[in-house]
């Protein structure tokens, strides 16, 4: 069993586990946007970067914990100043890309990101690849995939037609961290407004009976009780707002 150090704690882990799994087992939180326990790691969102070095003399590097094997002698810091700075800058970039996403707004609140210096883009997709991997690895369908390169890269279907392999199971919707309607808060484009409860997920327009799996918003929890003028648009949110567990 390899022995490594995470945040100063020496731990023995099973061979073959990743640093992310080891840290989570120890109760050390590492934020992620593209990771799911049932899927192969993609190292795409880079939010899970940790400062790691092999042995005391080696130079430390920021590496994605989700794909970093927990090896003998590895020294890992999950919350050093360097990691925090990288995470904050990343989240700021995420907020600018997808300001309407509740998951991202939550991350911003939790990591103290209070400003966004970029123009908002409202891209509605952060290309975490969770849906692609879900479809391929869990649903055994492979009906969607990535097309294009660089700025043109996007999730697509073969020849842009509905694939025969798609069973409309909705797993891609379930796992998507950002498929939500744009935030309708007071100043959605410029600030982190805490108004992200006032939406109804975009998927509801096409899939009436789909389940919504969203948790209550971190920022709104911090902000206290909801404003009375907020309209509740969906059944799932009614449950959330009335404080019942799903």
């Amino acid at each position, binding site marked *: 069993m390899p022995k490594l150090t995470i945040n100063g704690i020496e731990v023995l882990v099973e061979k073959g586990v990743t640093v992310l799994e080891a840290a989570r087992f120890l109760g050390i939180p590492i934020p992620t946007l593209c990771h799911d326990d049932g899927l192969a790691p*993609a*190292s*795409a*969102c*880079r939010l899970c*970067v940790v400062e790691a070095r092999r042995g005391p003399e080696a130079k430390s590097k*920021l*590496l*994605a914990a989700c*794909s*970093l*094997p927990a*090896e003998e002698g590895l020294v890992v810091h999950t919350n050093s100043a*360097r990691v925090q*700075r*990288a995470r904050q*800058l*990343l989240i700021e*970039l*995420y907020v*600018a*890309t997808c300001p309407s996403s509740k998951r991202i707004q939550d991350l911003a609140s939790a990591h103290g990101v209070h400003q966004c*210096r*970029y*123009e908002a883009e409202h891209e509605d997709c*952060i*290309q975490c*690849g969770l849906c692609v991997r879900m479809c391929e690895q869990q649903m055994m369908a492979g009906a969607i995939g*990535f097309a*294009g*390169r*660089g*700025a*043109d*890269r996007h999730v697509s279907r073969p020849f842009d037609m509905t694939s025969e392999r798609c069973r409309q199971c909705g797993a891609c919707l379930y796992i998507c961290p950002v498929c939500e309607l744009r935030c309708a808060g007071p100043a959605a484009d410029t600030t982190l407004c805490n108004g992200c409860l006032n939406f109804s997920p975009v998927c509801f327009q096409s899939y009436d009976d789909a389940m919504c799996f969203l948790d209550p918003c971190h920022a709104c929890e911090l902000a206290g009780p909801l404003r009375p003028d907020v309209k509740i648009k969906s059944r799932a949110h009614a449950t959330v707002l009335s404080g019942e567990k799903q």
Partner: protein
Amino acid sequence: MPRLKSVEELESFRTGLRATRDPKRPCLTVCAGSGCTAAGAHDVLAGLRKTLAKHGLQDAIGVKSTGCHGFCERGPLMIVWPEGTFYNQVTANDAAAIVASVSNGHVPVEKLLYRDPVSGKRVIREEEVPFYARQQRVLFGNNGRIDPKDIEDYLHVGGYGALARVLSTMSPEQIVDAVTRSGLRGRGGAGFPTGLKWKLCRENPAPRYLICNGDEGDPGAFMDRSLLEGNPHSVVEGMIIGAFALGAQEAYVYVRAEYPLACEHLRAAIDQAEEYGLLGDDILGTGMKLRIHVVKGAGAFVCGEETALIASLEGRVGEPHPRPPYPAQKGLWGRPTVINNVKTWASVPVIINWGPEWYAGIGTEKSKGTMVFSLVGKINNTGLVEVPMGITLREMIYDIGGGIPGGKALKAIQIGGPSGGCIPADLIDLPIDYERLTEAGSMMGSGGMVVVDETTCMVDIARYFMEFLEDESCGQCFPCRKGTQRMRQILTRICAGNGVEEDIPLLEDLGWLMKQASLCALGQTAANPVLTTLRYFRDEYLAHIRERRCPAKVCRELIFYEIEPTLCDGCHACVRVCAGDAILGAKEEVHTIDRARCTRCGACLEVCQPKAVQVGTGELVCRN
């Protein structure tokens, strides 16, 4: 030609070859590299052949097309052997004079000899040309001598001698040890010690694979191309030696699809080597097996990254994957793989032939051997140069490169391809080695060197490289995909005069993030052009932002054109070319430019004979 069945047979064949070839027989070798071909080398070849046939001299005087000699600026180049007379800027019309001079006792054709721009004297031999004098052409030396499609030419100059020596006298461990002691580091850019890479790969169980990375994608770089086109056997020989050291039986050469000639020459070299028993089953009767496959790239810059290259070879999308596991542990088809650059493989036979100590004697403490650069941009002697590591930039630019054309001042040198950095003119005494370049914020890269003079805007050049990288980022990891996009947006804004001072710390933060958190080397180095220009040319950024002024007068939104009334002769030339009807004034009268209508295309500047059209910046620019 019978297969060579042993090392002894190879050596006796070589001896026989040398005996049949008359060393005194004149031979005209014409460079048919990309640059010289563009300048008409094939016309020269045809002209020479025709003239020889006319005089019935085709058997007495040989004609050969060779690979790139490097001095592309003065092409087409040719050398007359055995004297080694070097001619430059040869045309098909010169064929008669050249043939006459060769048949009349080798009196050099005066007007085709290179004229030293400083002394004004004509020089006869290649080594006397200042461009070549400071070079040490270890890898490229044979390019001017051999026909790349003829294995016998390569054997004649001692080719496959290193392979013979390795197979007869060395064990795989000794080869790895020799490469380690030579201090050879990966010539693809990262500079990882080659011997260590091989050793790590050998620690993992067979089957192992070899890959030669010929996916050279840097704008303006053509070192790997010239080597594959001009001396493919040196790469093949290096790979066979590597395969022997690593116990590999399959090897792949991944060549950029835009290099058809390199593919053709390489395939011919592999076929010939198989025919001669130097490749395939039972190499030189030792029982060693190796097949080399040539694979054409799919046209993505990122496929030069080793893990992306492997994915592309396997038929997957060319996207990098995180390391560890390193290719030496788990590479092609999940097996241990050594992947080296074209120049690294070609250096292996040199190390074996001349000895690791000799090789380690060249260069600096940590960077050994020679490095090939493509010297391009605002420089007099454009071309390929091979220099010992540790040479200073000053020697590169002024001694070899011949300085900046038009008497302009040197501003910066962009080293290491699009994701390298801009090194300012103040650091011209910097020795070129891996560590010093990294300290200066740039990197060795695969050897692109773009010289920039005072007429280039550094913000604009950073924007140009960022556009390239935005396009070439695979898009898989977020900081690289979004970082390059955002950086390009911000730089475009600054170039258009819409930047704010907060943009500078934002660019620095973004650059830091990309460097720290990106998945592969492309993303980690993508911010270099911006970070280095910010470090060395911050004033220029501030001039764009604070004063809306482009000091180099390049950024279109920040410049204006005007006509100096005392110089204008009213010739109307500018009025005729102006597409926007922005130039006012009747013929024979002084013209003026209506700034509101001017699109700042620069057409008038080019046609104005009395140089009355001038470019200004810094004043309020009228916009349409």
